[in-house]
């Protein structure tokens, strides 16, 4: 019969733990490395700064939607309507500004107001989602699914399905300008990701998303104002999606009736392969970012490689599947 005493809490393994914990969210890093190597074999242009910059710019709007969705998923909710906000918010905001002949409402507000209006509209959509979900205790999935149709329907109805081509320069600026040799969209997206990473890692408000997503009742019992925080998250999600719409509009030079349509699947894919759980309370913004990068790199490599159109989807899906397995093996933990 031993009489060993419980050893004092060892300090050494602690440090290792944190590191491991952090790595768990970065299981896609090996995948990214594999892709970078594979890409460099596919085409020498792949690893050039120009091409990689393009990849980042192409992904920046989607990345913002992923950021918004990741915040909402971590807090244990869903928002499918983000994709429709990407198109509707810029379209409607711009319609306040441009003349009737160009498809506007005829109000012709100053062009400079278009971006603030756009963000406001995004926030309003988020607030309305939050209202329906929290006040009526409806399922977030299904409310935002309906809202996805409603919001896009609003754009279709108001624009009569037309694309908007004559946009104020100020509205196109963010999505098309370059700052210090890099597209402004990359700077903006990068900055927002940095803010979110810091907020979710080191700020009370950010941490409360994990608590709410992990166990909302416990969060409430610990004094977190769950409904209020969730509402804020939906609003922020809407604003960020609207900003994604601004960047995308600037990149494409016009707003088609389909802007954003179909993005939400990719946003979910990126967030989830990046380690954000659909069950809430799990994953990091940095992980979600790696998810976006994987998707962007795969698309870029496939384009460079020139895979025949009819086989492209198959190859694309298969690579995602393989990436999942690599990240699963690298991560060691079961996914959910």
């Amino acid at each position, binding site marked *: 019969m031993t009489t060993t005493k419980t050893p004092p809490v*060892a300090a050494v*393994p602690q440090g290792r733990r944190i590191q491991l914990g952090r790595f768990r969210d970065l299981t896609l890093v090996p995948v990214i490395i594999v892709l970078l190597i594979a890409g460099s074999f596919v085409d020498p242009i792949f690893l050039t700064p120009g091409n990689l910059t393009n990849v980042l710019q192409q992904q920046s709007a989607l990345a913002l939607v992923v950021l918004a969705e990741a915040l909402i998923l971590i807090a244990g909710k869903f928002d499918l309507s983000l994709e429709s906000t990407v198109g509707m918010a810029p379209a409607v905001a711009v319609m306040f500004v441009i003349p009737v002949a160009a498809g506007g409402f005829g109000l012709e507000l100053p062009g400079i107001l278009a971006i603030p209006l756009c963000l406001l509209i995004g926030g309003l959509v988020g607030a309305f989602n939050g209202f329906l979900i929290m006040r009526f205790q409806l399922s977030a999935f299904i409310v935002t699914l309906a809202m996805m149709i409603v919001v896009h329907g609003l754009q279709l109805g108001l624009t009569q399905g037309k694309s908007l081509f004559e946009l104020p320069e100020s509205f196109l600026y963010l999505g098309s300008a370059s700052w210090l040799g890099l597209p402004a969209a990359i700077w903006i997206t990068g900055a927002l990701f940095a803010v979110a990473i810091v907020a979710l890692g*080191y700020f009370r408000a950010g941490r409360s998303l994990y608590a709410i997503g992990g166990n909302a009742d416990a969060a409430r019992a610990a004094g977190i104002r769950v409904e209020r925080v969730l509402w804020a998250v939906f609003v922020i999600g809407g604003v960020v999606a609207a900003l994604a719409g601004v960047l995308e509009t600037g990149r494409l030079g016009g707003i088609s009736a389909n802007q954003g349509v179909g993005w939400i699947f990719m946003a979910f894919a990126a967030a989830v392969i990046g380690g954000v759980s659909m069950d809430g309370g799990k994953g990091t913004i940095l992980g979600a970012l790696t998810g976006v990068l994987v998707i962007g790199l795969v698309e870029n490599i496939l384009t460079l490689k020139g895979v025949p159109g009819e086989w492209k989807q198959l190859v694309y899906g298969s690579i995602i599947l393989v990436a999942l397995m690599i990240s699963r093996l690298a991560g060691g933990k079961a996914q959910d």
Partner: protein
Amino acid sequence: MTSPVKAVEAIGITKRFGPTTALNGAGIAITEGETHALLGRNGAGKSTLVSILTGLQRPDEGEVRFGGQPAPPLADRDAWRQRVACVYQKSTIIPTLTVAENLFLNRQTERGRINWRSLRTRARRLLEQYGVDVDADVLAGDLGVEQRQLVEIARALSFGARFIILDEPTAQLDGPAIQRLFARMRALREQGVTMMFISHHLDEVYEICQSVSVFRDARHIVTASVDDLPHDQLVDAMTGEATAAYEYRTRTVGASAPVVLAARNLRLAGRFEDVDLAVRAGEVVGLAGSGSSGKVGLAETLVGLRKADTGTVTVNGTEVKGGDVPSALAAGLGFVPQDRHHEGFVPLLSIAENATIPIAHKLGRFGMVSPARRRERGNQMIARLDIKTTGPDQPVADLSGGNAQKVVLARALADDPKALVVINPTAGVDVKAKHSLLGAVEDAVDRGAGAVLVSDELDDLRICDRVLIMFHGRIVKDVPRGWTDTELVAAMEGIDHQ
């Protein structure tokens, strides 16, 4: 210890979870027909052994035998179920199914179509047999912890298995329910059923078990007949050191001490009514009552988890908004909820983070939370409450039940509360931990807090300066310190009052 027939043997079991070794070459052997206690501090590895003995987990090393025969392969669940039935420590109730179906899960019928009517009848009969006052048709998710536990017990005992494991079945039960369980266990033993019983209440062990094994730090320490291991030696075996009994402190509550928690004319339909209550600084007030007396509902209303229909709650002089936890916390309240899994902690978050959520605003400026300061607070809590863990960054999900409970208390104490409400704080907590938990409550009171302690456990209630007895939703008696067990039980059962 040797004996002709071993109903079950576990030999040289080692089980690791990442950096944690839950079992380290530990074993147990239980003679057929006896009721065998497995004791050990929180995190000693008891529940891990249970999961291995019931085929839910594969040991890294070692072997399990039933009646001398090797255990069936893990995949063969039916074979395991024939050999062993179990009340797990962690709920195995399926909340979205009815009580009746939970009782007969995966055996609703022998073959063919399920006859729901006869299933309900069987369920009702079973509940009746165990004196469980639960409607067979309600969703199990709508039951309270206590009722859920009773359903689990009824289910495990109803299998007709020859070997039954009960992992802390009594932690959530009140006295009469425990006695009903024991009567049932005795009857089973008379029929030759072997049982393994886990509990942190040593008196229960002496009452119902013939032999006992003690685990400590993942190892087997001793196996003996209960008669050969008196109370103190048992405790010493568990803790690995000489451990004194808890010393209840005496306090005198000044009549002028400020009232830190008060309820006026509080009423919640169906739960309680006409409740007036005042707890002074430096005072521990017990709240006791038999099942469904309304004590938990009252406590939950005091802390803001429920909203009273009428009446007011005042914390530390501030009248708090009904049904609003944050305002109660802001006024200086700390509390331990009844069901730690439900409202107690966020499983994926670390110990340090769980314990510091209410004080996150004090761990940094401008809304920032410094991880270093959080870890520091976490370490303090771990030391103060003696939490067995690899460190403050370990997720609470990975802790043993009792240690998780300590984290919940740590959260309640984090902000140096002026008023403390603790509901069944020692449920599932080992003897030594119980001392530190009760000690922590008394420390807080000595520092000037007032506390309400809701419990069915007489040992816990002994720290109270007075005990309020609830019966059918009303406070019927105010019992000062110095009561005897029978007095208090009689009061709770409603035998003595008018």
